[in-house]
């Protein structure tokens, strides 16, 4: 932090008046090296932070992304950041939270994709893998209890809500959720093999 304070303090004092002497040459070119300094000081710490919370290979991308956000933030351009460490921490946490939000949005999405998987094509391996996946999915579906399977397909393919399924089947919404949990668990095991 000592390095940063040294740089930021002169940057946050009021602008020079006409009569003031010009700052020494080196101060004028300081802003870019300062970001480097920040990176040197906080980079490793952020990397450790991300490494505990994201995939290893993602961690360094996230560090970069943090610094890009930091550098392009208005506060940074105006050099009004009092405590860059806290600010960086905030950016880092927000980045992870963005990922969580995006996962959440994908979970809520209610489209029933109707795209055909290419079962034939120029890439023989891709076609075989697609068939293999379908095959495993079919087998896994057939191994589900019929009731669980019907509920799963009614929700996943027909787009019925838990509530609609509950009304028509006489189950409670929690009961539908239980069947969905069973189905996802089973299909996940079958597809992940």
């Amino acid at each position, binding site marked *: 932090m000592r390095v940063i304070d040294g740089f930021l303090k002169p940057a946050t004092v009021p602008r020079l008046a006409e009569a003031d002497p010009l700052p020494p040459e080196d101060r004028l070119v300081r802003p870019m090296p300062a970001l480097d300094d920040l990176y040197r000081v906080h980079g490793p710490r952020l990397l450790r932070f991300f490494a505990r919370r994201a995939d290893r290979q993602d961690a360094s991308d996230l560090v970069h992304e943090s610094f890009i956000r930091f550098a392009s933030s208005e506060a940074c351009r105006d050099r009004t950041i009092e405590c860059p460490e806290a600010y960086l921490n905030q950016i880092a946490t927000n980045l992870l939270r963005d990922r*969580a939000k995006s996962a*959440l949005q994908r979970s809520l999405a209610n489209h029933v994709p109707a795209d055909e998987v290419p079962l034939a094509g120029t890439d023989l391996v891709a076609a075989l893998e697609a068939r293999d996946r379908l095959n495993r*999915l079919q087998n896994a579906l057939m191994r589900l209890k*019929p*009731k669980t399977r019907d509920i799963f397909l009614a929700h*996943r393919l027909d787009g019925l809500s838990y509530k609609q*399924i509950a009304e028509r089947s006489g189950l409670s919404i929690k009961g539908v*959720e239980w069947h969905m949990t069973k189905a*996802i668990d089973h299909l996940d095991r079958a597809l992940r093999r």
Partner: protein
Amino acid sequence: MEGRATASSAPDAVREQAIAWLARFRSGATDVDHAEFEDWYIADPRHAEAYEAILETWDQTALAAQTPAASHRHTGRRHSLARIAGIAAAVLLLFVAGSYALTRYPWRGPAPETLLASRIGEIRTIVLDDGSRVTLDTDSVVHVNFDDDQRRLQLERGRARFEVAHDARRAFVVTAGASEIVAHGTVFDIDLRQPSALVSLLQGSVEVRKTARAGEARRTSAVLRPGQQLALGGTAATAQPAMIRSTETRWPTGMLSFEDTRLAEVVASANRYSQTRIVIGDPAAKERRFTGTFKAGDPKQLADMIGTMFELRVERDPNDNLVIASRK
């Protein structure tokens, strides 16, 4: 910023939590605490990883629309939900309809033929229904046809290792070009990429014979012993078994080994594993002898290794190939 220790980070527990979150979100419940989910998601990389994996499964289950299980449901929502209500007969019918559909779908059940294939640079092992294992080298294709009497396979392209599960009732027969290799409980390689296709026996015994053509009364055959290999091309009757060099049997590890081999041959082998090709620009260099082991599918590393070993220059050409030439 300090990481919190998470109480339940055992893989199974995390996976179950991930599934529970998804099943919860799908319920459309309005009381789901989004912030609570976000906290859970970012608390530990294993949480995020587990959740992304479950989401991927979820995305894939959209393919269910293309399975017989879905398309042969009694059509209409009323019907399927009537079944949910518990009409046993309907459930039973669905089951029968479902299993019938299975056998009719080409990708399901005792398929008349299974195709195994690998991409350029890929080495993959597939376990067959009988427990035998087929390892495909880069860019290879094998057809598999099993029935009650015979386990028939055909190597169409590339190289493959066959580790044959013992089954006294059903012979394991691999066709390669105009030859058949008959095996019982053995391990052997067939390589179609050599000038003449090669069978190399690692364990057990195999019989190599020419496939009988119409009008040919006799079939020629040879029996190999472990450690021997036989060229299949040309006249198999006259070909003599040769000893296998140990460096030739290591390919399933993804490492390529060569002993005192022409550089041109080493490079040709390596080029099978990647789209980026190594080109030897200097005719004299092709004749240099190479001894060493390297990882298949990493042409840059090999080119640099060759460059250093033989004091040659390595450059990229406009097609992204690696050109090796003398330093001048």
